[in-house]
């Protein structure tokens, strides 16, 4: 049996029924890492074999008397390297934090740790989660397991690739404008961005605080439901986390969509969109109709401003959030600096990559005296209108279905020189973050070049259950989630 092929729920069952030991899991995944990781480069810090084995032995020993397992016990989970892990380097894909070892766990990580999970590694990402291809990592790009010449998407490209390449059983990512869903679509896995406030952001290194949300990358929808249950819920350390009851998401999974009203926003199917993507998503909508869903065309007129609004708000918040990387207390500090100002400028010049600097400058400008109202103020006003679009739409439908990404994964280097084209990779996902609602990306096809395509399902705030139910029903009616990259290595 190839343990690495199993889903989280399958591996969990094997383990709880003592069909495999923690040590066997650790060995299997260590072997997989050694074999496949050099080609994918999903990780910035992969776990060391010895560490995993030591942890595994401790778990097996603990279970010897009474096999009482917790859901994530001995489950090899990858964590995006902008989520803090106590004692384990957390770089955010940046030179600035190349040596940073947090003395604390993110809230989501401490929940995993309390269940004795395996941290299989910290995954690669665009620097400070700013990007759509993982090419902005200071530590080199991650490759798409389906085709090494292509990007895995971003910014959670490492997490998506790690799941797709069976390097872990599931992964955590973060999504500010599509950074979970877009790479999930690129790599043919399931990516869930929960409602803003559903999951604690404590320990997630901030990019844009009002948009950032931690979510899951998994092999199927059931696994997403299971992981969400663990990470969701109020956290006293995050004032923006919501005190809303966490349901048992797995119970919401049904194979029918009877009674569900599905909205299809006309603005998301425009002339000139990639025909393969359009065809795959239209087919997915047809499939939902077969599953007894009621399909309805809707309009989200303001979403055409989403990318513009996003690049004002996200960069403004980022310009402030990244001010703490000043070389004073931790991270890198430029050598041989003379005086305070030079220390600041050199540290930030050397520590940050081009895209991060570009966004800090954009955001600083948007908040400057004399420009604030025209940029930040206006963007916030339009954000409210975008949110209202969703509120209006959700009066008529339960979920909204759209493409996740305009095209299948493009080639490495293809858009590096054109930031605006790169920004447009998130055109379908960004409005969801601005509205703060939950959405999931589920595989819905393969292009002629054998690159995955994903469909996005969006729900009302705190109605992840409906999103998961629709995603599960669709997934179970198709074979797309069972497709694996033809790993020729």
């Amino acid at each position, binding site marked *: 049996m190839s343990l690495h092929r199993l889903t989280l729920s399958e591996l969990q069952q094997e383990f709880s029924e003592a069909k495999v030991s923690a040590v066997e899991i650790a060995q299997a995944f260590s072997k997989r890492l050694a074999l496949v990781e050099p080609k994918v480069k999903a990780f910035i810090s992969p776990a060391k074999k010895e560490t995993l084995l030591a942890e595994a032995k401790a778990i097996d020993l603990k279970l010897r008397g009474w096999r009482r397992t917790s859901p994530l016990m001995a489950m090899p989970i990858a964590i995006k390297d902008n989520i803090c892990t106590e004692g384990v380097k*957390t770089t955010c894909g940046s030179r600035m934090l190349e040596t940073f070892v947090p003395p604390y766990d993110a809230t989501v990580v401490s929940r995993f740790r309390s269940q004795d999970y395996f941290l299989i590694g910290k995954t690669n990402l665009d620097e400070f989660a700013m990007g759509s291809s993982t090419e902005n990592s200071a530590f080199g790009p991650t490759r798409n397991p389906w085709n090494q010449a292509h990007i895995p998407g971003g910014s959670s490209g490492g997490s998506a690739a790690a799941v797709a390449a069976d390097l872990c059983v599931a992964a955590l990512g973060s999504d500010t404008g599509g950074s979970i869903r877009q790479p999930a679509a690129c790599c043919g896995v399931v990516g869930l961005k929960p409602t803003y406030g559903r999951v604690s*952001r404590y*320990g997630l290194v901030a990019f844009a605080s009002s948009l950032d949300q931690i979510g899951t990358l998994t092999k199927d929808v059931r696994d997403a439901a299971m992981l969400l249950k663990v990470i969701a819920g109020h956290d006293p350390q995050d004032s923006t986390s919501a005190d809303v009851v966490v349901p048992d998401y797995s119970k919401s999974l049904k194979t029918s969509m009877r009674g569900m009203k599905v909205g299809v926003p006309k603005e998301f199917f425009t002339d000139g969109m990639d025909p393969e993507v359009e065809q795959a998503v239209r087919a997915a909508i047809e499939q939902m109709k077969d599953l007894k869903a009621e399909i309805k065309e809707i309009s989200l007129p303001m979403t055409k401003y989403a990318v513009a609004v996003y690049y004002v708000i996200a960069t*403004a918040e980022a310009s402030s959030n990244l*001010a*703490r990387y000043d070389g004073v207390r931790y991270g890198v500090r430029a050598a041989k600096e003379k005086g305070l100002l030079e220390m600041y400028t050199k540290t930030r010049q050397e520590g940050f990559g081009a895209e991060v600097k570009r966004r800090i400058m954009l955001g600083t400008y948007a908040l400057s005296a004399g420009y604030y109202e025209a940029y930040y103020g206006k963007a916030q006003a339009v954000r409210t209108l975008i949110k209202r679009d969703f509120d209006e739409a959700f009066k008529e439908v339960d979920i909204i279905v759209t493409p996740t990404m305009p095209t299948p994964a493009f080639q490495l280097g293809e858009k590096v020189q054109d930031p605006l084209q790169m920004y447009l990779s998130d055109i379908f996902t960004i409005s969801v973050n601005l509205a703060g609602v939950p959405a999931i990306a589920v595989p819905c096809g393969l292009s002629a070049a054998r690159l995955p395509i994903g469909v996005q399902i969006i729900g009302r705030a705190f109605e992840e259950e409906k999103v998961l139910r629709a995603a599960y029903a669709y997934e179970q009616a198709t074979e797309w989630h069972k497709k694996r990259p033809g790993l020729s290595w």
Partner: protein
Amino acid sequence: MPYEVVIGLEVHAQLLTASKLFCGCSTAFGAAANTQTCPVCLGMPGVLPVINGKAVEFAIRTGLALNCTVAPMNRFARKNYFYPDLPKGYQISQYELPICEHGWLEIGHNGTPKRVRIRRAHLEEDAGKNLHQGIAGASHVDLNRAGTPLLEIVTEPDMRTPDEAIAYLKMLRDILVYLEVCDGNMEEGSLRCEPNLSLRPVGSPTLGTKVELKNINSFKYAKAAMEYEIKRQTKVLDEGGTLVQETRLWNPEKKETAPMRSKEEAHDYRYFPDPDLVPLHISKEWIEQIRGTLRELLDARKNRLKEQFGLSDYSVDVLASDKKFLEYFEKCAAEDKSGLSKIEVGKELANCITIEFRGLARKMNSRAGFEQSNTPLPLRHPDSSEYGEIWQGTLIPAKNLMELVAMKLRGEISGPIYKAVLEEMFFSRGKTASEIIEAKGLTQVSDEGSLEKFIDEVIAKNPQQVEQYRGGKEAVYGFFVGQVMKASGGKANPAKVNELLKRKLTQ
């Protein structure tokens, strides 16, 4: 040309919460550098602020006492700038929606009441401290203070003289101390004041160019800085010059103000709402609950003291300068079982606390080793730090002090013995007056036999004065009393001495 002075004040009051504004770290003063820090107040990656409810309560309490409107919805904003003592690269403050607005305070300067309007009071976190001592060529940062809660209280430009500004400042300080929201200590920086001062031709409706004054850590400096600034600005204007809007630092050595380097103030703070904190919603119920628990305010309390105990303005002002101090007075007065009038007891007690204690504090400061003892929170006199630990005296149990004062009032002990016993009580802590009197052999001599012996000696030694007295020069009488007291080592019962002395002298 005659000018009118226009002054507004910005006051930063450090709130007396046990923990910081956005994390659980202690706010205690004086700990070793960077020991009262955590990932949150160090500004580490990924951490988030959580508002301290107590600080909000203190802000509301102060706002209510300053007649402010408490905003049902207020919000935190980020003030962005780079400085090594600012860990996040921004300070969390309040900008367009402060917690308190539109208040006023009535100052009774020179007997005429005057209303100073309060524009706003908002919550913000303090920064750390840069240290420039230690390794040559390097600076260090202590972040113990980073994140300590401050309430910034801003007035309208309603004051017209430095004295008015000082009157406002003192009154504000008294109120903050009374409300138990701030210790009011200017030297340690828990109360910081930044006057904004401008001049305009008398009668002009528009405001002149204002100058903000910083680096002021006492009432004295506040006054001196403002007076200096008036002179300087007058000179510039009289000579036909123009003033620049700027921040100037008070230099206490040179006794003058000098402009801050313009680099340091050329900030665009890029304020925007802090997305890590949800807007603060304050319910009417909470406001009313806080209003209900508001301590009796200063004026009411001062007036009550004057009425009940007939105290002088001086005594009331000194007593009212510190809440602990006033409470001590009231506690002592409550122990009074002497049967004497409240006014008599009050005056003596107030004298003891406001005058005698001060003398003893001076003595105490010169006593070696005393400061190492476990002194409690030192209380301070508002005008000076000279009597740094003057209120050490409040360690005398109220009951014991009242016993001593009553003894004096009833004439059971003489003035010198009263002072000697008080000193002993002040330093010994806990011993009662009777214990000290007994142990030191200070028991009053009242038996007629012994007293007559002293009197006879004095009369025998001073025949000339006896002659004078008997010849009608009654002023000499006090001399005999003094001599008898001296002969008895201060132990003679003055009342008995009087009685016997008069009898003997007229014999």
